[in-house]
């Protein structure tokens, strides 16, 4: 079982220092990703899901961010946080590839697709340009780009948004990464194109046997793609479980509220459930549970101490005092 | 009850702006400096016995002493008195001409940016024409026609300086105009004038403050240039500009610094403080800037 663990993140804490104060963007997040699995990280904007992925790649310094001591990110047992920038450069793109949200800006507009792909492949796989070129064409064909030999000579602006995202996926996967981090890969795309891209990602995942961390705000997308789901809110992990556990039996009041507040295609409700209030301002330190102020179940105890991420009998985890008893029972067994 | 509350809160907006401005130390210091300076050039002649015109026989080019605080110039006039009286002229010329430029340039830029099309074409070509003329020559001609006086100098500098305001306003307006809140105003039925003055202009002001402070400074310097050519403020009247130009002779520049250093220093200090006040105002009026 242990051997299957590809990435292990434990007690990850990332802060940003701004003029107004310190923002704890990621506050004590732990999770593991197994080979060939898809972990969905869901949450609303500002919940820290993107910062988590940037922290894994150590891309956080240039935004004035800081990963606090005590955090650990292990890729196949190898600690990443202690690596030098040069060593990280070999990890990024080679072992962990990333796909960003905006297909318009993640390609360099002044170079052809060929140049961008070949350079990446040559750098990471240490093969000749000719071999790299044929790998590139092969990958373009795999991601469903028609006439790859011809399209590879084109510039990014000559491609549509969906095609660009395919190219980005091709670049990301062409170096056989062990882990692919996809940060809102379909948010900028139309639904019909989104369907194409999700379909493609699913097919390719089986083919290359890479694990995927899928970061999204769209519960529909994780429902389709993920094996495990981590629900984040205001920098903290509120719930973790398999897809079935999260969707059939959501535990945390936030997850419950979130699922109930989405308009559904498969049924019609008169009125949507809505979580009152707004996301808390992270500049002000939160005492106790971060969701307390919007929570229908909040009690006095919720304000006094921060709830731990409790392990429940079915191996899911939830950070809510409501489940304290249940968790204790499972610990006794 | 409501009314009182409302007024209180509205006052607090202005109080907020003032507070924000006061927190801007450099701007506050500049404001203080400028106030003191303006008060000085207005009040000192009333309080002290200052005489900028009399040529004191036998006291040509004297270094500062107890009788002449800043010495005398090459025809024996008291430099300190001339500095004070010159300040009246220079500061007035600076502000009035910059204001005139702004009053002409900003609305024209606004019109060109908002309406586009033919109006834009006409106004912006006019700007090009004005900018491609050698300003100094036109100034010379105009001042000659109008006669050399402080008023005509202000008029001429003001009339020729609007292009900067127009171009800056135009470039800012064409970007602000595309903002959704302007379309929202239009969708709410706002007239063109209201869209321009309540939605577009307030959001285009920031760079114009800076432009205004540059304009004041440049007007003061242009007046000096005109004075030097004998077309500025007529000769016996002092202005900082014509005092500085006395440094054209090498001997004055090197051996008699008291004739030009005070005027130069105060000119630079004035221009700088106007710039800082512009910066401070820009920040204070921006609701997004925190206290």
């Amino acid at each position, binding site marked *: 079982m242990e051997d299957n663990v590809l990435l292990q993140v434990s007690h990850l804490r990332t802060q940003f220092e701004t003029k107004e104060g310190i923002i704890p963007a990621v506050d004590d997040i732990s999770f593991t990703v197994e080979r060939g699995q898809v972990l969905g990280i869901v949450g609303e904007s500002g919940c820290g899901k993107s910062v988590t992925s940037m922290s894994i790649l150590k891309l956080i310094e240039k935004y004035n961010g800081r990963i606090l001591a005590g955090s650990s990110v292990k890729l196949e047992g190898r600690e990443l946080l202690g690596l030098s920038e040069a060593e990280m450069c070999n990890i990024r793109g080679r072992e962990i590839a990333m796909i960003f949200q905006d297909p318009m800006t993640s390609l360099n507009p002044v170079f052809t697709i060929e140049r961008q792909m070949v350079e990446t492949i040559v750098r990471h796989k240490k093969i000749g340009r000719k071999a790299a070129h044929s790998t590139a064409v092969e990958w373009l064909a795999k991601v469903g780009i028609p006439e790859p030999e011809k399209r590879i000579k084109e510039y990014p602006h000559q491609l549509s948004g969906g095609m660009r995202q395919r190219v980005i996926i091709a670049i990301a996967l062409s170096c056989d990464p062990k882990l692919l981090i996809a940060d809102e890969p379909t948010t900028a795309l*139309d639904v019909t194109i989104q*369907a194409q891209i999700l379909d493609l990602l699913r097919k390719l995942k089986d083919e290359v046997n890479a694990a995927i961390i899928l970061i999204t705000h769209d519960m529909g997308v994780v*429902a*389709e793609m993920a094996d495990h789901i981590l629900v984040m809110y205001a920098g903290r992990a509120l719930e973790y479980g398999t897809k079935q556990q999260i*969707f059939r039996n959501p535990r945390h009041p936030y997850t419950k509220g979130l699922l109930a507040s989405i308009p559904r295609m498969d049924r019609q409700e008169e009125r*949507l*459930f809505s979580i009152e209030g707004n996301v808390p301002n992270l500049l002000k330190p939160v005492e106790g549970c971060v969701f307390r102020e919007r929570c229908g179940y909040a009690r006095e105890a919720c304000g006094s101490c921060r709830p731990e991420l409790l392990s429940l009998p079915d191996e899911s985890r939830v950070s809510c005092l409501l489940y304290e008893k249940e968790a204790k029972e499972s610990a006794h067994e | 009850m409501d009314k009182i509350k409302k007024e209180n809160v509205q006052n607090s907006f202005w109080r907020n702006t003032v507070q924000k401005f006061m927190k801007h130390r450099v701007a506050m210091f500049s404001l203080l400096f400028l106030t003191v300076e303006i008060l000085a050039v207005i009040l000192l002649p009333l309080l002290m016995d200052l005489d900028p015109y009399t040529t004191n026989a036998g006291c040509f080019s004297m270094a500062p002493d107890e009788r002449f605080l800043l010495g005398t110039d090459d025809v024996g006039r008291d430099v300190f008195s001339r500095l004070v009286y010159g300040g009246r002229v220079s500061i007035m010329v600076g502000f009035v001409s910059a204001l005139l430029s702004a009053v002409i340039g900003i609305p024209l830029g606004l019109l060109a940016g908002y309406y586009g099309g033919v109006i834009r074409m006409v106004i912006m070509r006019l700007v090009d024409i004005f900018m491609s003329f050698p300003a100094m020559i036109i100034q010379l001609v105009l001042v000659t026609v109008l006669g050399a006086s402080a008023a005509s100098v202000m008029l001429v500098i003001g009339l020729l300086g609007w292009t900067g305001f127009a171009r800056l306003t135009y470039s800012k307006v064409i970007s602000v105009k595309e903002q959704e809140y302007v379309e*929202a*105003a239009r969708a709410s039925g706002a007239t063109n004038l209201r869209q321009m003055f309540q939605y577009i202009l307030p*959001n285009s002001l920031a760079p114009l403050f800076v432009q205004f402070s540059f304009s004041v400074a440049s007007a003061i310097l242009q007046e000096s240039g005109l004075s030097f050519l004998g077309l500025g403020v007529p000769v016996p009247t002092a202005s900082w500009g014509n005092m500085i130009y006395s440094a054209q002779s090498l001997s004055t520049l090197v051996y008699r610094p008291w004739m030009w250093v005070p005027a130069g220093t105060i000119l630079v200090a004035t221009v700088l403080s106007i710039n800082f006040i512009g910066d401070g105002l820009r920040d204070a009026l921006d609701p997004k800037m925190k206290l």
Partner: protein
Amino acid sequence: MNDSNALLTVQNVKKYFKGTKGCQVKAVDDVSFAVAKGETLGLVGESGCGKSTLGRTVLNLVNATEGGVIYEGRDILKLPQTEMRMLRKKLQMVFQNPYSSLNPRMTVLEAVRAPLDIFGIGTKEERFERSRDILKYVGLDEYQMYRYPHEFSGGQRQRIVIARAIISEPDFVVCDEPVSALDVSVRAQVLNLMQDIQKERGVAYLFISHDLSVVKHISDRIAVMYLGKIVEISPRETLYDQPGHPYTQALLSAIPIPDTDIVRERIILKGDLPSPMNPPAGCRFHTRCRFAVEECRMKEPKMRFDESGHGVACHRWKE
């Protein structure tokens, strides 16, 4: 729907933009529909299909190339500017991005009061009171009235924008992707607010969105747009239960459902959206359509209605 209870009728509206090299972009091409009093007509389509342009053309915010919009017996696209301006009291708009649709230099009170100021409604005190009441109604506290937009979250700002749109008691509000920029948990709040407003004030919405699940939740009838044309228009249930147009079918099947128990057959559309500069001849969808036959390439399909008011522009509908 019969025309007698129509609040606003859009007739053969076209909007062409001049593109580069003399090309024309047919953003909206011959679109007709009607909106009844107090109903919500959802308008869905993917980016670039012309839905936002259509919304703006209906309100005469962009000049239509051709066609008419009948409101209170008059074609508002042909009204002189001053009369059109007065009508805006009754025809308002809510924008997509709550961060950019509020003037950053106006307090919330000023922003919401603006329509009253513009039309000179009531005395100064009355305007103040109405603004305060409406802000309270959309869920803002009184002490927040003198704050500036940047001090609010996206959801709060969108409430302010909605308050501004309804303060002059309009009959019709075009909502251009009003919840797309909002987070899921806040989205529900705003959708509920919009429904409450409709129930209490009887305002009709043209609700533009790319998100079919949101449109389905809020709309009474739905129109689907593809490349500048409406390809299907029908009551909500019919559209979701028996989508007539192949594009609608693909669109519906493409939406991920946040549930693990539902397994659906997915229709994956081939290829990308053709350029609106050079739309395909015949039926515009034929390049991606699984049912396309020769006729679709040659002849443009007309919108046909069945007796329930379900309209589809497809040659092969009901085959």
